[in-house]
Every structure is written in C-alpha cells, then in structure tokens.
C-alpha cells in the first residue's frame, strides 16, 4: 500500500475500527466488609477522587412488614420529624448546615436512611443519625401535616394518566393485597394512628434488622465511628430470607379507563407476572427485553417512535423485585393512536417469536450492554449500588459474572425460544388510561 495524504484518504462513510465491547474483561471491584459488635454487616467501597461519601442504613422495614396500608411508608417519611431532643427543624438544620443530604426511602422489603456528605463532616452527622433511629417520637402535629400534604400530592397524582396507570397495572399483576400491588388512597392516610407508627418504628428500626453500605472517600477510622454509633444498638443482622407473598393476579385481562375527559394522551401499560432472578429464564429474558424495548435502538422504539411517531418514548423492562416480578411495556401515546400502538407492540412480539434475530443486531445489543455496564461500574456510588442489589437479592458476584457471560453468549435461538414462551399477547394484562 502506498501512503497518501491523510486528508485525501479520510473516508467518512467508513466507521473507524472498534474494540468489540464483548472483549472487555469486566471486573466488579470487590467490597470490603466488616461486622459491627451487634452483628450488623457493613459493606464498603472505598474509592473516588472527590472528598465525598455516602452511608446508607438499610432496614428490613418495607411495606411487606406492615399490617395496615401506608404504615411503613409513613414511618420512613417521618423519621426526620422529631426526637425527644430535637424538633424536625433542628434535625434538618443540622444536616443542611454541613451541606449534607439525609434522604429516606421506603420499598417493599426494605426501607433506607441515606446520608450523602463531604467526608470531613461525618463525625458531626453520625450522632444525629443514631438519634433518629433510637429516639424518634412521631409528634401528632407532624403526622397531621404529613397526612394532609400527602393527600394533596396524591390528588395531583391522580389527575395524571401515567400515575393512575402505574398503580393499576401493579394491582392487576400482583393483587391489591400484595406488597408489590397495593397503593395508597386518601382514606388510608386518614386511618394512620400515631401508636401504630411508633410500634412499627420500635420493632423494625430501633430494634430492627439492618445492613450498612458505605461508599466514596472513606475515613480510615470508619469502622470505629460506625461501631461507636450503631454497633452498640439493639440492631440485628439481616434475615436469611424475607417473606414471599402469594400473588393474586386479576382475572380480567383488558382494561380501558377514562380518567380525564380532556386528556390528549393515553398511558399504556402491558404487563405479565414474571419469575425472579433465580429462574433459569431470567437472564435470557433480560437480553430479549433489551432488544425488544430496553434501549433507544430497540424494536419498540424504532418502530413506534422512530418510524410511526406515535409517542415520545416507549420502554419495556423487568421490575426490580426480590421474590417475583413483572415484565412490563410502558408508554404514553396520542389518544387516537393508543390502540394502534398496542397492535404494533403485539406485532413486534410476533416477529420475535417467528424470526431469528440476525447476528448483527444481536452483536449490537451485546456491545451496547457491555458498554453500559462498563460505564455503570464507574465511580464508588455506582459500584455500591450494584453490590447492594446483589446482596439484597441474596446473590453473590457469580451472578454478576453469569450475567456478563449471558450477554456475550446467549444465542438467537434461545431468544426466540424465550419469545415463544413469554412474548405472547394472551399472557399480558393490557391497560389504557386516558
């Protein structure tokens, strides 16, 4: 070959050579673990260039543990609203003075209290976190403000078709009594009583089962600090397994609901119950899901957004639940094209059942997923989030490596087999809320 002037050989139609992402050797940076005096485990990722960190306390205090709707969520929401020594204002002011964020979230199995802070301020903040989990008093006045404002927020949510559809589809799949399927009503807020909140708090927080996750630039005496403030408390290590509830899916499969007579779009949800991560089909189906509706270049996006322009976005995903889960398709589409959209979704399912995915598309999805995971393993907070998901699902790092292996090797035949098993219209609940 003869060397020519660079400018004359720049062929813009030709893609530069790439390193195939499937060749990336992805490694999950291991955590450091220690156990506090009371047996509570602490998982740490010590990394990062900025002087910031997070400490998360995960309690087994999600809505699976409540006897009455919303008790778990209310306790979690009101954790920062007063102790015997400090008012809600004083607690907030303390964390905010140090520029830190103390957030709480309530899920199905777990509920969290999460601190993000500049690492240098940790010693000022841990004592007050301890106070919050040992000495919260849930003042009546705070409960009443919480009820009133939650009901108002709910009233606004109920005007939105996507919010309404999200609640209903979960109820169809799991049943309204199931922790994954139940939702809030104004009357449930009214019915909350202080003593129920206090009892739940004592049992599931002050004396609860707990795991800690820390990430970021961690101080060298972290163990000492955490043990001083949390290791002497009557907390317990996490349960070996959490309770699994029986799902009671609805009998009727198709729903059309009118929520707002002036609505110009419909919220579409299709869903079917799906097994959890331990099921042998799970990883193969997550790959199929990506191809079907899990990224911008997916079949659903390409057809329904990029070809037909029916929607701003359409996605499919498998919910991140522990015991059982659901496979969903979700979009907001123009009122007049909702039915056409559903029809196209079913057509895409049919294509996946009948035709083998060609090698190029499969290769693209493999590379895309690998690149995504590579980027997702970047930074201490992302790493701990991945570990947390593994640990809270009672898995270990072999699951991570298995899922990488699956991305690299799952075959077109296996994907078609999965499509024939799961992507069948009759398996799906079908809901449109306008």
């Amino acid at each position: 070959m003869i060397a020519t002037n660079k400018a004359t050989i720049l062929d813009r139609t030709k893609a530069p050579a790439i390193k195939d992402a499937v060749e990336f050797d992805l490694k999950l940076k291991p955590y450091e673990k220690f156990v506090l005096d009371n047996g509570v485990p602490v998982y740490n990722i010590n990394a990062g260039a900025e002087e910031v960190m997070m400490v998360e306390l995960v309690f087994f205090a999600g809505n699976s543990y409540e006897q009455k709707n919303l008790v778990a969520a209310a306790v979690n929401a009101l954790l920062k609203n007063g102790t015997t020594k400090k008012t809600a204002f004083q607690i907030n002011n303390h964390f905010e003075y140090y520029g830190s964020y103390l957030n709480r979230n309530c899920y199905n199995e777990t509920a969290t209290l999460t601190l993000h802070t500049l690492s240098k301020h940790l010693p000022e903040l841990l004592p007050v976190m301890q106070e919050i989990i040992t000495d919260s008093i849930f003042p009546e006045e705070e409960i009443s403000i919480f009820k009133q404002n939650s009901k108002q927020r709910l009233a606004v949510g109920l005007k939105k078709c996507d919010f309404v559809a999200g609640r209903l589809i979960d109820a169809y799949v799991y049943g309204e009594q199931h922790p994954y399927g139940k939702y809030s009503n104004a009357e449930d807020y009214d019915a909350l009583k202080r003593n129920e909140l206090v009892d739940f708090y004592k049992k599931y927080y002050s004396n609860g089962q707990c795991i800690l996750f820390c990430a970021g630039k961690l101080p060298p005496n972290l163990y000492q600090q955490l043990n001083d403030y949390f290791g002497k408390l009557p907390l317990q290590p996490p349960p070996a397994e959490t309770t699994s509830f029986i799902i009671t899916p609805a009998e009727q499969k198709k729903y059309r609901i009118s929520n707002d007579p002036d609505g110009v779009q419909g919220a579409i949800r299709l869903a079917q119950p799906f097994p959890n991560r331990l099921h042998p089909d799970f990883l193969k189906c997550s790959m199929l899901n990506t191809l079907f509706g899990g990224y911008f270049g997916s079949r659903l996006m390409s057809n329904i957004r990029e070809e037909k322009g029916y929607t701003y976005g359409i996605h499919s995903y498998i919910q991140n639940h522990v015991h059982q889960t659901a496979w969903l398709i979700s979009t907001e589409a123009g009122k007049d094209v909702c039915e056409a959209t559903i029809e196209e979704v079913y057509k895409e399912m049919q294509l996946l059942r009948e035709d083998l995915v060609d090698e190029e598309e499969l290769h693209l999805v493999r590379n895309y997923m690998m690149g995504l995971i590579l980027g997702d393993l970047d930074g201490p907070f992302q790493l701990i989030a991945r570990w947390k998901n593994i640990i809270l699902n009672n898995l270990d790092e072999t699951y991570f490596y298995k899922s990488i292996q699956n991305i690299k090797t799952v075959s077109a035949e296996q994907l078609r087999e999965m499509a024939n098993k799961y992507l069948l219209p009759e398996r799906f609940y079908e809901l449109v809320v306008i």
Partner: protein
Amino acid sequence: MIQYERFVLANGLRVLVHEDTSTPMAVMNIMYDVGSRDEEPERTGFAHLFEHLMFGGSINIPQYDEPLQMAGGENNAYTTNDLTNYYITIPADNLETAFWLESDRMLSLAFSEKSLDVQRKVVCEEFKEHYLNKPYGDVWHKLREMIYQKHPYRWMTIGKELSHIENAKLEDVKKFFFKHYRPVNAILVVAGNITVARVKELAEKWFGDIPSGEKYERNLPQEPRQTAPRRLEVKANVPLDAFYKCWHIYSRLDQRYYTADLISEVLSGGGSSRLYQSLVKEKQLFSNIDCYHFGTVDKGLLCIDGKLVKGVKMEDAEKAVEEELQKIKNEKVSEEELQKVKNKTESMMAFEDMSVMNRANSLAFYELLGDANLMNTELSKYQQVTADDILKESRIIFDEANSNTLYYYSSNN
C-alpha cells in the same frame, strides 16, 4: 480544581480536553451556541425540534445511533433557552467512533423528509406529554408571556404552540443548520481516559476540514426594566389552587447572580429553609413551597411557587409569603444561616463534579459563557457574598414593581 487544556482549530472550533485516568470511559460533549431564544416568534420550538433531527442521519452516515451502540456507546441531548448540547459516553478505546459520528453531522445532515415528518410527530407527543396532559402543565407558558414582554425567553423551549412545530419545513431546517451548526459556533469537550495529544490528532483529522461557517452574532431584543406589578388569574381543571410569583434577576455573568442564588437557598432548599418552615410547617398554608431560579445566560427569574392547603384563601397565602419577604428585606441573615447556604453550595458542587460527564458539560457551558476557567472560580464567588449583599439584593429583587403574580385556581372548588 478541574484541569483542562484548550486549543482552537483553524476553522474556529474550540476544543477542551480534560484527562481523568480513573475511568475506563470517555465523554464527548458538543455544545452549540443556539437555543430557543434565537428563534423567531412565529417559529418557536425549532431549536428543540432540530435537536431531534440531529439523530436522523448525516451526510455520510445513514444511522447515528446504531454504530454508536455497536461501539458500546450511549448518547443524549438537550435544548434549553440558551443552548443545545449533545453528549456521548463511550469506552475510551472506541473514542474515535464518537469523532466520526459527531464530525459528520457537523459537516452536514442528510436532511431527510421522512425524519422531519416523524420527529414533528414525536415532538408533538412530547409537547402533549409534558405540557398539555399534565395538571399545571401550561403554567410556564402563561408565566413567561407575562414576565417577558420583549425578550425571547417569552416562550418555552418546547415552543409556543403545536402548530409552530407542525408547520416546520425542510427548508427552515437547512437554513437553521447552516446558520448555527458550524464549527465557529460550537464547543467540543473531550474528557475521561484520553490524552491531549490523541484528542488533538483526532480533532484535526475529523473536524479540521469542516468549513468554518459564519460567527452567529446574537442581537436579541432586551427586556425593558419592569416598572409596575403584573398579575394574572387562571382557572383550570386541577385539584388544588396554586400560587406563583416571579421577579426579574441578573444575567449569569453578573456577580449579583450568586447573591440571588443564595437568596433562593435561604428561602427554600431543604427542610430547614425559611418558606418551608414558616408556611408549610408552622402556618400550614401551603402543602409545598419552593423558591428557585433559572440559571439562564441572559437576565433570569427568581420564582416562588406552591400549592395551597385546601380551604386557604389565595390572598392569605400571598400575604404570608410577603411577610417572609419583608423579613429578608429588613433583617440581615445570621452568619450561621449564610454559612449554611454556602456549605450546601460547596457540597452540591463536589457531588456534581464526581461524574466525568458533568465535568465535561460544565466546561462546555463556562466556555460558552466566555471562559472555561470560570468553573474553577465559581465557589469563591459564592464565598464572597455577604449578609449585606443579601439584604441589599433582596430589597431590589423583591420590589413589588418587579413582580409577576399568578393565581392558578382549581375550578373544582
């Protein structure tokens, strides 16, 4: 301190490089100096529609997304009133794919009729999803028209009305592209696990021969000083009454911008902020209340908005807000309170800077403002704000003659 190197190609493209070897990834961020403020009043929403069209194929590459995904990359974009930004994250080994794709669409789009046709529909659905089919979705539409009489911040990025988007022609698309999407109006930032030398070589190779284009000279109508209060009342099918009040503030490069930012933090920005404590917790007039501003390049807005507790009269709610404003206008904030909002700002910046993508994005934005190094002096500008500044600026900003009030009533009451 964020380290970077800056050079300019012969065609005027500004390039900034920020090395960070702790990540396996690279980020490419391209910011174009055009936003919805540069649109004509009869063709609003165009800058944003155009952003969608940038993904419809370029002159030599029919598909933008596929080769990127094949290289393990991901991308997105956004349009604001001020600018349009495109960004890619990709395994650093495959950075050249990003150069190839971005340079080709800066060279020229494919200008496909089909793409325009589909993206018009997609953007109309986006319009509906966010602004028509949501309770309170039209608020900013109404507020902007009241607040800005002349300046093009008068309309939202999504556009004034659906018809402006529906009527967009391929001819307009071409003109817009060759006016704004030229190297001389763009900033390229490459960050992550890369070297300056490699970026220099790739930038020359892929962007070097793109015609420079003409520098876009912005000449926007300036907003005259507001001299009398403006008020508007609306009734709509929403569950709760809502209160909105906005005041004109300063441009992004004005030192008083930092004072205004801290004022908004004193008033709202956490469970210990003044408006929340007084109006949600103590007086229980609002179920939520926020004070915020838009960090726009030209003179921006400070806004307070909240939903009223059912049964509370709008006038009483406004009076209570006014009492809080009187306090900040009449009494200096304590040193402790001032320190708190500065600490919060410091911490927020540290968390933002954790991500390479945020760093690349910020570098591009500050370069657009005139000097990328502003990124490194930002914190000290907040540190310089005094309690006296807050007192003085509160009096100027919260002048009734500078205010715009919207009573958004629920028709269900």
